């Protein structure tokens, strides 16, 4: 008996219009692929955000706490390349914010929304620990209870981060370890949220998940790009020629790129290529469309639709999907996608530490490695901005083990 053969072409899924991001013609990423029990929660969140955006008091509180809690604006550091290139390389120093990562704006905005909605608690997942620390710190500032899910292997290798979360009063839940560490932590956090949705808001660390999360994160993180653009214009007289971010979930990338979409700036998202094997965490380069954690987006998956095991060296990059809006920008050709191998990222991390006294996170190092590569051949004076997602103290043991 001959059965109908299955092909793996894309089902075009033209769903309802809210939270949709157009990719190629006929392609719409995003949506709300969640259990029905979460829909009322998402609808409430969307309505609360719409009201908050129009409320000058909310805006003023957000701006005040960006300064007084997150420590913004963060500096823009010029790196003198000398023989390494004729371009000017500027680093947007998210590592110098209060919690030491690029998550501050998104976390603050979402926690303020939780407060506005009358909720007493937040829940989040964290891959590298940076996002968990930001949520724990902000929840402490706003008087919210925080529960942070982290995959067991990441938690054990990032004990200092777990200690910081606990110091801020957060409950840290270790999810039994498997591969794809961030994805398992996220599933744990979402299950927690499904059981406590009335009083607890999920706080996304990346522009992933169901609508309205990708939009919330993009809007609240846009402060990164607005600051960087103004700082570069002040120093060079023009927007940057090139802007670079690493794909570690994409929270820094949407924040930086969102403010530069109307400029002629080349926007480049760098994905960790790993060592060519299972360590590749490059859903924009190698993924095909599917549904994960509430969004239709580009996923690393097999022919049956099972997610690939991601064992990225950088824990913050161990997620098998791209944010739906980043997927749309990439498929529509608005952003370029590049790939950097683990060894090149580690070399960059060491180079910046040894020559500039600057210890960046391993996640950031993929972007900086690509920036170095471009700087080497760019015309004299070309302004390149690259976002540093966080500091690298947490990654030194990993880097050392890599040899």
């Amino acid at each position, binding site marked *: 008996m001959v059965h109908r053969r299955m092909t793996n072409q894309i*089902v075009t899924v033209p769903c*309802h219009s809210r939270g949709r991001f157009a990719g190629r013609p006929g392609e719409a990423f995003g949506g709300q*692929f969640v*259990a*029905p029990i979460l829909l009322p929660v998402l609808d409430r969140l969307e309505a609360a955000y719409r009201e908050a955006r129009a409320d000058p008091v909310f805006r003023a509180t957000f701006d005040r706490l960006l300064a007084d809690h997150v420590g913004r604006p963060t500096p823009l550091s010029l790196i003198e390349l000398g023989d390494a290139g004729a371009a000017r390389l500027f680093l947007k120093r998210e590592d110098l914010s209060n919690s030491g990562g690029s998550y501050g704006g998104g976390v603050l905005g979402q926690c303020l929304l939780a407060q506005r909605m009358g909720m007493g608690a937040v829940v989040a997942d964290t891959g590298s620990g940076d996002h968990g620390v930001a949520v724990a710190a902000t929840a402490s500032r706003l008087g919210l209870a925080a529960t942070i899910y982290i995959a067991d292997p990441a938690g054990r290798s990032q004990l200092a981060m777990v200690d910081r979360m606990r110091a801020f009063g957060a409950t840290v839940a270790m999810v039994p370890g498997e591969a794809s560490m961030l994805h398992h932590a996220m599933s744990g956090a979402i*299950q927690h949220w499904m*059981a406590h949705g009335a009083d607890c808001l999920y706080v996304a660390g990346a522009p992933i998940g169901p609508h309205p999360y990708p939009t919330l994160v993009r809007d609240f993180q846009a402060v990164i790009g607005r600051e960087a653009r103004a700082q570069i214009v002040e120093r060079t007289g023009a927007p940057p020629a090139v802007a670079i971010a690493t794909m570690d979930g994409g929270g820094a990338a949407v924040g930086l790129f969102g403010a530069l979409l109307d400029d002629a700036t080349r926007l480049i998202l760098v994905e960790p290529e790993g060592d060519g094997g299972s360590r590749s965490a490059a859903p924009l380069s190698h993924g095909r*469309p599917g*549904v994960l*954690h509430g969004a239709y987006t580009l996923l690393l998956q097999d022919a049956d639709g099972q997610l690939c095991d991601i064992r990225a060296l950088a824990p913050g990059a161990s997620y098998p999907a791209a944010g739906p809006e980043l997927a749309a920008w990439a498929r529509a050709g608005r952003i370029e996608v590049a790939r950097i191998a683990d060894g090149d990222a580690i070399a960059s991390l060491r180079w910046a530490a040894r020559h500039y006294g600057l210890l960046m996170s391993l996640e950031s190092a993929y972007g900086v490695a690509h920036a170095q590569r471009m700087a080497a051949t760019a015309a004299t004076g070309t302004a390149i901005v690259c976002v540093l997602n966080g500091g690298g103290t947490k990654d030194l043991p990993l880097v050392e083990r890599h040899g």
Partner: protein
Amino acid sequence: MSRRLTRRFVERRQQGRAALIFYLAAGDPSIALAADMLHAVVAGGADIIELGYPFCDPILDGPVIRLANRRALDAGGSLDATLAIVRRFRARDADTPIVLMGYANPLLSRDGAVFAYIADAGADALIIPDLPLREAAALLPAIAAAGLALVPLVSPDGMTDANLAASPGVGGFSYCVAQAGPTGGAAPDTGQVRAAVAMCRALSDRPVAVGFGIKTPALAAEIAAVADGVIVGSALVDRIRAMGDEDVDAAALFAAIADFCRTFRTAIDGRS
């Protein structure tokens, strides 16, 4: 075809019995035994089978069913393997409806012929917990054209997208989720279940089947007294896992599973 499912509920209602629905993961513990495992569940009194095609991230499921999905994947499970099991089951059982349960990605990452392919294998309806009606709307014509029905999930605090619940392609029964949180949780409060069933009945005249946390024959009997169907998942899956730890042959395994299912059947029929 969804008609097979509708007919089964009508028959049971005429007999004054609640429909007994068992969930199991296709390929747990083995692909080779899977079709006979379904026959054993039917022999034990199942009216309808909810057959899970495995997924690596079953987000609405608790630990028992999450592990069953893992075992099924490790055994070589997939959507294709699940449909092959359905074909083998259908060769000997043309009457027992099969509702395919699983997550959106294995379906939506394929081409639009996937629903016809599922119907062709002999499945009758779909439960997809991460495909709410507002997202399913665009797919409902293909689901209806294949003769399938998407079973709507109704959560404890009401139904969002109720305006879409009467669309062609939505049907079979209303899946009344007895409690918030993942499958296999604590036993639901029967008073709350009664209220949730009443809400489902107010929303549509479809049969109402209740699931989530129904682990004992006694609780199943209480639920059967107020609903048209009772769905038992984690309890059976856990029994299958426990049998796998014992060194028994296939015949003894099937006999034990049938006996286990029969305890639910007997309890339900005694009360309804």
